[in-house]
């Protein structure tokens, strides 16, 4: 029998060099956290496909690869990354290159009073109280092998703290750029804390300058206080050879409103773990996702909506467009605890297959321990409706154009939920551009 895990030594051996870089913080609480996580990461190893959670996504080869810690980034100017900056979202921006904050590209100008937006590294150095109260409180560094690795190598990322009742109107653009060199491995760590009654909008954006076989292993923690709102979009446009492993862990207090829009357009292998714990009554939680894959891309989304308390609503739509020999995995779990009466949970997963060789594995799960609940899920896999295509062609729209229109309409269910208008329009344009490179939408 094959083992359920591989040795994580190839990655963990970088830890000694990393520790040297952390000089100065070696006696701090955060370093203790790193060391604990390192020990745990060594125990957890790298999962193989014998592990049910990783059944369809093979990350075991990572255990055999040689990694380097990204070298200090070469200097970039704003004009070098202009294509990655959405128009209308320039007011607040944090840019990270290979996991390290780059001040020259960032802009934290005009935020309401009391709001902290900084690099995690700087916040750790200033021993921010709220940071200490929230960091590593939600992520599953004891259970998830890659969260453990991320926590062991925790150094930098975006940190946002919105104090009670403060509304941040302008969206915050958190841009993680990978220089894309072979064998590079970065562990960005983000923390978004929105206190009671506060509002914020965040675009968490991953992009690359080159298409080497690098790895991004990111973790984002989200904490929403009573009645807080966060509209959180994750746009993944990694390079062609990238392995992108991401965990988002959100803890939602009563009456909070959390929306996550997870758009995956790039990377060779993507794995997202998106978990939301509805830890108070009357929470509204939206967990949406859209992905297009072609070539040999592999996109794996695992979501968990954990209804811990009564009277909460959750909505989930995941949609994928698969071309060439790409592969999609969806595992959406809704968990309803015994006390979580009057839960209303909806989940939907739809896939469009554009090619003969694309594959989909989907597993929408319900685990329910309360009786007075409404839970539904649905999953479909299929092609575009031939009648709809014919209808458009009969009205003079070319076949390729018709396919693109229908595919975009398919995506629109997810995209239209992004609240900020300029952001929504820009992401739609990225999806259009991505579709233009999808052969299944051109020829057949």
């Amino acid at each position, binding site marked *: 029998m094959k083992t359920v895990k591989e040795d994580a030594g190839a990655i963990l051996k970088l830890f000694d060099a990393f520790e040297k870089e952390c000089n100065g913080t070696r006696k701090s609480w955060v370093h203790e956290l790193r060391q604990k996580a390192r020990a745990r990461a060594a125990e957890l190893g790298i999962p193989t496909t014998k592990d049910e959670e990783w059944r369809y996504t093979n990350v075991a080869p990572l255990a055999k690869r040689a990694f380097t810690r990204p070298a200090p980034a070469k200097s970039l100017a704003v004009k070098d990354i202009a294509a990655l900056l959405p128009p209308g979202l320039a007011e607040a921006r944090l840019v990270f290159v290979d996991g390290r904050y780059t001040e020259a590209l960032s802009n934290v100008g005009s935020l309401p009073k009391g709001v902290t937006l900084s690099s995690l590294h700087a916040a750790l150095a200033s021993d921010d109280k709220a940071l200490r109260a929230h960091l590593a409180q939600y992520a599953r560094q004891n259970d998830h092998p890659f969260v453990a690795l991320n926590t062991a190598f925790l150094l930098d990322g975006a940190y946002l703290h919105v104090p009670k009742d403060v509304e941040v109107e302008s969206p915050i653009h958190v841009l993680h750029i990978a220089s894309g060199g072979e064998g590079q491995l970065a562990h960005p760590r983000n923390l978004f804390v929105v206190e009671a009654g506060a509002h914020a909008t965040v675009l968490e954006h991953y992009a690359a300058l080159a298409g080497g076989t690098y790895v991004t292993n990111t973790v984002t923690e989200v904490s929403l206080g009573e009645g807080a709102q966060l509209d959180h979009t994750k746009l993944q446009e990694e390079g062609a050879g990238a392995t992108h492993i991401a965990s988002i862990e959100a803890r939602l207090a009563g009456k909070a409103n959390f929306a996550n829009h997870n758009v995956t357009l790039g990377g060779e292998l993507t794995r997202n773990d998106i978990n939301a714990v509805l830890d108070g009554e009357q929470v509204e939680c939206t967990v949406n996702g859209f992905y297009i894959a072609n070539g040999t891309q592999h996109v794996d989304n695992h979501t968990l909506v954990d209804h811990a308390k009564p009277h909460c609503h959750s909505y989930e739509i995941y949609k994928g467009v698969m071309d060439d020999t790409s592969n999609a995995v969806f595992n959406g779990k809704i968990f309803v605890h015994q006390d979580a009466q009057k839960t209303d949970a909806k989940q939907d997963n739809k896939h469009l297959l554009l090619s003969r060789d694309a594959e*989909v594995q989907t597993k929408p799960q*319900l685990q329910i321990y309360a009786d007075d609940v409404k839970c539904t899920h649905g999953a479909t896999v299929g092609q575009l409706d031939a009648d709809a295509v014919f209808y458009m062609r009969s009205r003079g729209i070319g076949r390729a154009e018709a396919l693109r229109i229908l595919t975009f309409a398919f995506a629109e269910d997810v995209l239209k939920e992004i609240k900020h208008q300029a952001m929504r329009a820009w992401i739609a344009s990225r999806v259009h551009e991505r579709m233009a490179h999808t052969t299944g939408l051109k020829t057949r």
Partner: protein
Amino acid sequence: MSTETQSIEELAKREYKWGFTSNIEADTAPPGLNEGIVEFISAKKKEPKWLLDWRIKAYRKWTEMSEPNWAYVTHAPIDYQKISYYSAPKKKKQLNSLDEVDPEVKATFDKLGISLDEQKRLAGVVAVDAVLDSVSVATTFKGKLAEMGVIFCSFSEAVLEHGDLVKKYLGNVVPYSDNFFATLNSAVFSDGSFCYIPKGVRCPMELSTYFRINASNTGQFERTLIVAEEGAYVSYLEGCTAPMRDENQLHAAVVELLALDNAQIKYSTVQNWYPGDEEGRGGIYNFVTKRGKCAGVNSKISWTQVETGSAITWKYPSVVLQGDNSVGEFYSVALTNKRQQADTGTKMIHVGKNTRSTIVSKGISAGRGQNSYRGLVKVTKGAENARNFSQCDSMLIGDRCGAHTFPYIEVANPTATVEHEATTSKVGEDQIFYCNQRGIDTENAVSMIVNGFCKEIFNELPMEFAVEAQKLLGISLEGSVG
């Protein structure tokens, strides 16, 4: 909402009506499993060498395997060395007619409502191959079936009289190395039914077998093999009750169905084994491997099951849709009460072109029952125009039970259309109120609603089985089958 919970709780406390034990001298193998036991079983049944070799091969494979633990069930570890693997009612002499059947055996079946007596057969057209523990006691209707060329007999008899057919088809659908429990079964299976429908024959009656776990500490390892030749049709019924016991009894059966070109097999099960007491003590562990293969074009296999018994039910009646245009169906009602656990569902493997499958699963959880649907719909690369529709509905009664859904969908062909839907709900307060208002008491209202919830499945049960299904379901939810 306490009223219907209360009524369900009352129902849940009902004693197991069929919990009686009959004292029949059993010829039992000592507890434990080794090659010697496998040889003992084989020798007892006077089996040919090839079958003994097959059993030994399975036994050796089994020793290398480990018990699976992925199902959403919990139970104390099973000590396979404490189980006795063979038990047969001692034959006093060769039976020539029904009158010679051990009166106690006869009484047992009478209590269960089975008519062994051909003369006053109530069921009319149902042939019963009664399995009391491991050996077939009597088989009826044989003559009539033989006229049409249909072979319907106990497995041991088939091995002796139709060895070639058994050899040809045994392990064809569920190979001896398939999984832990199927492999164990392959090594030690005691008896079961064999059914062969020759080319072009439409079996004139519903075939039925009745399993009953009797001697204490005896695992039951039935083996059922049904082969429908080209253009044949058969409807097969299986129903079970078991006496009350304090020790968990392991049941690891294997059922293989093979449908060739244009053949149809309809397999219906009503299962009501002892579910354990209030605290979940005793009760049957039902770990079954059931699989059908639509090997030929236009063939069809349909599984219908009503699962109300057993402490743990762990079964996934599956269909491999190999032939072009073949059809697979799965209709299921699973009810868990007290501390019962069920992890059940199906697998539909689409291999041929234009294959279709339908899955309708209804799970009802009451008391502290845990009910899981686990299913796989797999569309392989060559399965052009495959079509699947799945629907899994769960109903929760009370707040200490659970309903879970684990559907796996794997699609590797763009022309496939796969749909899965699941809902979870409770018996609505307004529905109860509506019934109360019209003079229907709460208990009956719950039954009516649950009955309506399961109607789609009951409609699939053959007429001959409906009476029995009603009886058995009545134990858990009175009058739920109207």
